[in-house]
């Protein structure tokens, strides 16, 4: 019994076919956007790479060429499919679309592309660290909705302790605050087996309320508690001399270096060590680990604490990496974006970093756009990068699979 199968088209599941079709439509959609919106402005756009060198792109022809290419690619995807090259095609297409968008916005003027990329990396820091905190928890079976609260707590403690005892002490203070807030999550979720999502939300509100209250009642009358000297960028010897990349990656504050190290270290530990094997085991099937003598409860506590420390550090980025002070709700939902990065990154630190960079880029573009005179409403500017992000995410990620036991309390007797 043989069903005739097209020899170079492998059998795809229904879900894969749907996804392939969606990718095709997305490409066509992006093509139409560039044809009708982005090709509307003449003139050259200048992208400054280094002080002495600026690349000029003609906005209109570039957008038109891109529109033709995107529609063609979309058609190929719809009728034939790129198979395993789909993601590569989509990545290149989306990247080019972003450049066309920038070309359109900057036509007739110029701006620093390198500066924007540097900003992207900087802004991805709290999202990356927050996402790693989420991954460490969820991989061990505890859902961490409280990332936002932990970031906010870390930011507050970083500002106050930093103002009193200097930025290094501020870092330690932020870490301690993160651990403290995660300890609440741990006790309620692990010891008392309360619904983890509810505990997480409670911590977010608690953290927002407490820091806002203290900011109003203590920091406003005592501004000396809320002025800290942030860390200054450190240029890595030699590496920072590389054109463009040197500025983007190697002329950054401590936070960027720490978050890259955090990604590398957490990946290595999760996939190459005993701790990682056990952590992933208790996140998937804690009973299996428990019956082999692994202390599930203890390991979950430990992971939640470490996650709290990482999130606290991420929170310290606001006072100690940027503005040098704490403001009410300064994190403004970045913790939830970090949560999204956990899922988009498929519970893997490198994936989370990638997602964080995409989100960082949207923030950086949006900031840059408001400086350029583009004529589009600022509300749309706030929205546009996220639309692109959604398309990328829908295309790249497909459906991801959470650790199976995430959200379930462990009871050794069951």
């Amino acid at each position, binding site marked *: 019994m043989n069903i005739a199968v097209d020899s170079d088209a492998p059998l795809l*599941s*229904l*879900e894969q076919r749907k996804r392939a079709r969606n990718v095709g439509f997305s490409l066509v959609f992006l093509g139409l956007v560039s044809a009708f919106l982005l090709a509307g402005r003449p003139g050259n756009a200048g992208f400054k790479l280094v002080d002495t060198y600026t690349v000029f792109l003609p906005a209109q022809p570039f957008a038109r060429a891109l529109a033709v290419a995107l529609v063609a690619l979309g058609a190929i995807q719809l009728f034939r499919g790129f198979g395993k090259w789909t993601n590569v095609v989509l990545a290149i297409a989306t990247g080019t679309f972003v450049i066309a968008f920038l070309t359109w916005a900057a036509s007739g003027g110029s701006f620093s592309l390198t500066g924007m990329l540097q900003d992207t990396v900087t802004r991805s820091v709290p999202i990356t660290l927050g996402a790693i905190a989420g991954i460490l928890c969820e991989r061990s079976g505890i859902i961490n909705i409280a990332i936002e609260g932990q970031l906010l707590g870390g930011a507050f403690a970083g500002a106050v302790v930093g103002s009193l005892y200097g930025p290094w002490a501020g870092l330690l203070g932020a870490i301690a605050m993160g651990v403290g807030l995660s300890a609440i999550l741990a006790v309620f979720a692990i010891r008392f087996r309360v619904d983890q999502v509810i505990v997480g939300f409670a911590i977010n509100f608690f953290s927002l309320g407490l820091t806002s209250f203290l900011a109003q009642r203590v920091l406003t009358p005592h501004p000396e508690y809320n002025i800290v000297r942030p860390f200054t960028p450190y240029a890595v010897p030699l590496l920072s001399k590389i054109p463009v990349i040197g500025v983007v990656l190697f002329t950054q504050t401590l936070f960027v270096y720490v978050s890259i190290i955090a990604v590398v270290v957490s990946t290595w530990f999760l996939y*190459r*060590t*005993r*701790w*990682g*094997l*056990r952590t*992933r*085991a208790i996140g*998937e*099937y804690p*009973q*299996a*680990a*428990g*019956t*082999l*003598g*692994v202390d599930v409860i203890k390991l979950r506590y430990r992971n939640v604490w470490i996650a709290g420390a990482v999130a606290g550090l991420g929170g310290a980025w606001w006072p100690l990496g940027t503005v040098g002070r704490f403001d009410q709700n300064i994190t403004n939902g970045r913790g939830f974006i970090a949560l999204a990065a956990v899922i988009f990154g498929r519970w893997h630190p490198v994936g989370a970093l990638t997602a964080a960079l995409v989100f960082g880029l949207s923030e950086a573009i949006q900031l840059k756009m408001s400086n350029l005179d583009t004529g589009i409403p600022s509300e749309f500017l706030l929205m546009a990068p996220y639309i692109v992000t959604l398309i990328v995410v829908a295309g790249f990620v497909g459906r991801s699979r959470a650790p*199976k036991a995430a959200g379930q309390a462990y009871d*050794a*007797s069951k």
Partner: protein
Amino acid sequence: MKLELRGITKRFPGVVANDNVNLTLNTGEVLSLIGENGAGKSTLMSVLYGMYKPDEGDILLDGSPKVFTSPADAIAAGIGMVHQHFMLVPVFTVAENVVLGVEPTGALGKLHIDEARRMVREISDKYSLDLDPDAVIEDLPVGVQQRVEIVKVLLRDAKVVVFDEPTAVLTPSEIIEFFEIVKTLVSAGRGVVFITHKLKEALNIADRIAVLRRGKVVGEVDPKTATESQIAEMMVGRPVQLIVNKNSASAGDVVLKVTDLTVLDADGRKHVENVSFEVRAGEIVGVAGVQGNGQTELVEALTGLRKATGGTITLDGKDLTHSNPRERHQMGMAHIPEDRQRQGLVGGLSVAENLVLTRYHDDQFSHGVVVDWDAANAIADTLISEYDIRTPSKETGVGTLSGGNQQKVIVARELSRDLRLTIAAQPTRGVDVGSIEYIHSRIVKERDAGTAVLIVSTELEEVMALSDRLLVMYRGRVVAELDPKKSTPMEVGLYMAGSRPDSAVNA
């Protein structure tokens, strides 16, 4: 190593799960622990494995008393357990699962995965278990997964291996392989405790059989001389009818007709593929198959709990492919679901409320929107006595009853009206021997009254004994239709495993 349990007593609030239990296991011996659900087998083994602390009594290994406060202690003392539900992480490889908890590591806890692979290969070769250390668990058939569990136990150098209902998930040919492995373990000087409720298997493999009833060891028998009915009587405490008593069927008109039924889930996975069959009035059609081959989805599609993606279902000639469960119910379809707690009963409601759960909206039990509780209670009293439901009162929460009595509540509710079709999935799962006997006789009675009956069960013996015609499902398809009187369990088992008895000719 000689294992002794001396005077073990374990109490839970309101129950004595183990009552002064004494057992001995000698080196190189298979001890079968047999008893009904709730007799205390699993509690006893959890005590042995350090998951429960006994209230009284001692565990002795080679004569010296031991105290286990966690599974880690029991493992260190040489006790290994293969749980009924496999304790394997589905997304891990064989090697990762085997070394979990005893990982070979270097500096900073770095995992030596090559060493782990080598360890798996070594044990696998020594006991000829044929395992690939790099295979991912969720891709493996259950029989192979069980061998991974055995390697886990052997790697920890267990001298006593406890198997909790090991054959429940295996096909007949896998059971034979499993018994070979048990023999190898025993000849290598290890002791084996084999927990089961299947009498035949205990008689087949054990050196001694200990029977547990209500937490107590009620006796030990020698498998060379004991008979099935003798052991069953010890388990239940009274003589039991083990064979299903039925005359040959007199099949009438076609009641249920299923044509090209296909069921996909939300992810597009095919669970049921182009299944066609008929069930006639007055006959029992059985569906055999290893768990997870589409039987659950087939039943859900037939009863309206899941959407049929393709094909048609007719009852007495009327198309009900797109009818909802209540409409099907009103057309005379009864459903005894496979998961009684999740689909059959509302645990928090009383016995009486559960008994009218499908009928409270009938005129008989309601005046407009108000339920007539007098009528409902009256029918509940009748059903409780007619179906011999052992409950303190009709107001008792149904969740507090034993498995067998919960099942009788469902059977009473579903069968106590005029029916055209009865669909029963795993009708006796987790039910004591006494109630099994009763439920089987009820189903046969229903058939003799002219109802079409469809039985789905993974217990091959049950489905062969009950049915007049037997279908076998494998990977969502019906791969065989057999006459159970003319087929052997071995033959059916081959179809269940996906191979055809005559494949040598066809290949």
